[in-house]
């Protein structure tokens, strides 16, 4: 592997979180291939990356064939010409045809426009083929072709369902303010809506919050859901990952209360949690709360079992009463000590008032069956999240 000894790590940027990838660690690459549909890398020594990718053992990463696209220096004058190198071909007729076809395209120095060439390449690929396309000199490439070809390329890529794209450019190219880099980056970040659309509407980058109780099945659901969000590069915030040591959990709960989109995982224990119900009462206080919520109902009884609802109401009546008793037990001279109890009283009053609305919502909401969601890897939730975000932020790029 010529040159690989000179590079130690790549930085990849799924979303804006950065992860170091050690090139000598094939396992790390495999994990990335399994975890993300697309990745953007930065490297100071990207030329070496190409040789590294070319030399990958068995030319497979996580079961994916690796294909590198690079723009030959001599060809840069010819618009849209791409040199393709298949790292290693499987003994597969279709891929062999693909290779021959590409060789033909290269030898002919065809003047086909870029989208046509991509079509020629990808028409051979079906769901049996898992291919990673790596563009090691990505930055140079996008700055040397007309923007209209970038539009065409990203449009085409949207149609490729079974292909993963790994892009590598110099330094933090994905943070570049150059519009053509932004076009690509937006493409790879599925809910990174058009920057301008979002900004001009006075809205920040879309983030999905998750409100749930740290218990049993709820926790499992959220773990799986977050893995899916990461894979699809959807920005999400959950207390476990977002709220680090010393961060204010109260501030985070306030963020959730005002969030534009929250996935709420309702389970029986959720309603016994002061923190969860505090988040919930805030979310439901908005006039457009239905727009803001994607719900998952763990315990079906929450939908229509009156005894469960009575139980929850009673729980909060007792909790509030206990709080009042404590507050009233304090002597007048300790007025300041009563403040936290008063705040709790206000919050619990809000929770009690919200409960009927929540029960109605859960009964009315066409939430999908939990088994169905699990069987479908929570994809229906993902779709709902995307739909809601589109509703709020406008069309996705």
């Amino acid at each position: 592997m010529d040159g690989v000894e000179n590079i130690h790590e790549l930085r990849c940027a799924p979303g804006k979180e950065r992860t170091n990838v050690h090139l000598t660690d094939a396992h790390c690459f495999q994990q990335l291939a399994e975890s993300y549909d697309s990745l953007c890398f930065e490297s100071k020594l990207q030329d070496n990356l190409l040789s590294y990718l070319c030399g990958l053992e068995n030319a497979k990463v996580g079961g994916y064939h690796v294909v590198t696209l690079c723009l030959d220096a001599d060809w840069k004058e010819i618009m849209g010409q791409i040199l393709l190198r298949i790292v290693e071909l499987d003994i597969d007729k279709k891929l062999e045809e693909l290779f021959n076809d590409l060789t033909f395209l290269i030898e002919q120095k065809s003047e086909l426009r870029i989208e046509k060439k991509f079509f020629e390449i990808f028409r051979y690929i079906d769901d049996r083929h898992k291919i990673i396309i790596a563009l090691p000199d990505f930055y140079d490439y996008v700055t040397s072709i007309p923007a209209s070809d970038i539009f065409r390329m990203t449009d085409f890529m949207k149609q490729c369902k079974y292909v993963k794209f790994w892009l590598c450019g110099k330094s933090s190219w994905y943070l570049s303010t150059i519009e053509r880099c932004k076009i690509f980056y937006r493409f790879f970040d599925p809910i990174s809506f058009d920057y301008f659309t979002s900004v001009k509407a006075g809205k920040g980058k879309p983030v999905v919050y998750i409100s749930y109780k740290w218990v049993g099945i709820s926790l499992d659901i959220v773990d799986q859901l977050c893995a899916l969000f990461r894979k699809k590069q959807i920005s999400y915030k959950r207390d476990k990952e977002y709220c680090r040591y010393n961060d204010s959990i109260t501030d985070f709960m306030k963020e959730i209360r005002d969030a534009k989109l929250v996935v709420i995982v309702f389970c029986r224990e959720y309603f016994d949690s002061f923190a969860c119900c505090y988040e919930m009462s805030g979310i439901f206080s908005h006039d457009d709360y239905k727009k803001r919520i994607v719900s998952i109902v763990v315990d079906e009884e929450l939908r229509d079992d009156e005894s469960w609802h009575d139980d929850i109401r009673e729980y909060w009546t007792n909790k509030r009463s206990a709080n009042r008793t404590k507050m009233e037990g304090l002597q007048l001279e300790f007025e300041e000590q009563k403040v936290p109890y008063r705040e709790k009283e206000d919050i619990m009053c809000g929770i009690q008032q919200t409960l009927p609305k929540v029960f109605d919502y859960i009964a009315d909401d066409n939430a999908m069956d939990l088994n169905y969601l699990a069987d479908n890897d929570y994809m229906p939730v993902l779709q709902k999240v995307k739909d809601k975000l589109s509703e709020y932020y406008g069309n996705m790029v």
Partner: protein
Amino acid sequence: MGIWFKKMPADYYNQLSFFEEDVMLWQNDMVYVMDNHRDAAWCWLQQCEDGESYNFMHIDRHYDMGDYYYDEDLEPVRNNPRMDYLEYANLIRKDGGCKTLRWDNYIRFTHDLRPNWFKTNVFLTQKDGDICVGWHENTMRLIELDALALYGYMHQYLLELSDHLEGVSPEDINWKWIVNIDLDMFFYHYDDNIHLKLYSDGYIREVAKLLQKAMDKIQVLTIAISPDCLIGDGMKEKWYNGFRVLRIMAEEIVALQGFLFPENID
């Protein structure tokens, strides 16, 4: 005095003036004032002759040299270069992604339509924003000058143009100029924290005097307020700062004197 192609509304500061949205466009003689620079291309198309050649001077914090459109998007304008302003302003890019003309692509767009309007191309910018490299490198040659010496270079190129100057061909010295100014050039931004007025009122006044003096060499003068790129706390204050600079210029540029500032609009 002057014509509103898009009249400034009373609540102009509440309107979107960003990227592909515009609030107002006014003209008197060969001078145009707009809020969004993307309208400049339409003004040039009204004021310049198809077969004629011009030099181009771009004074702006940004390059505005993006190429974010398809070749096919040129066709409606190529077929009807004197199209109505509203038609132009509402042209949609082929893929439906956004409007065809944006605040960062109108120069390249016009250049593709009328390359002869861009003979000597002087760029006085803060080197912000996109500039096409590579593929487009040879299609439009730019003379990039140091914006710190803005007045001096404007004087040299507008009033003393000769083929001794950098990048000027002998055949270009007789062409009239398309002068394209964005008021954001007079301001400086760094991240979200530093917002400064870069040029003094006195300097801006001298620039305006120079433009008035050079008016017989100018075919069209387009001035963008670009409130979104100015300094100020909120859009109202940004607009105010834009009008403040424009007032100074209006005191020196005759054709600008009829501009109706907000307080004078019915």
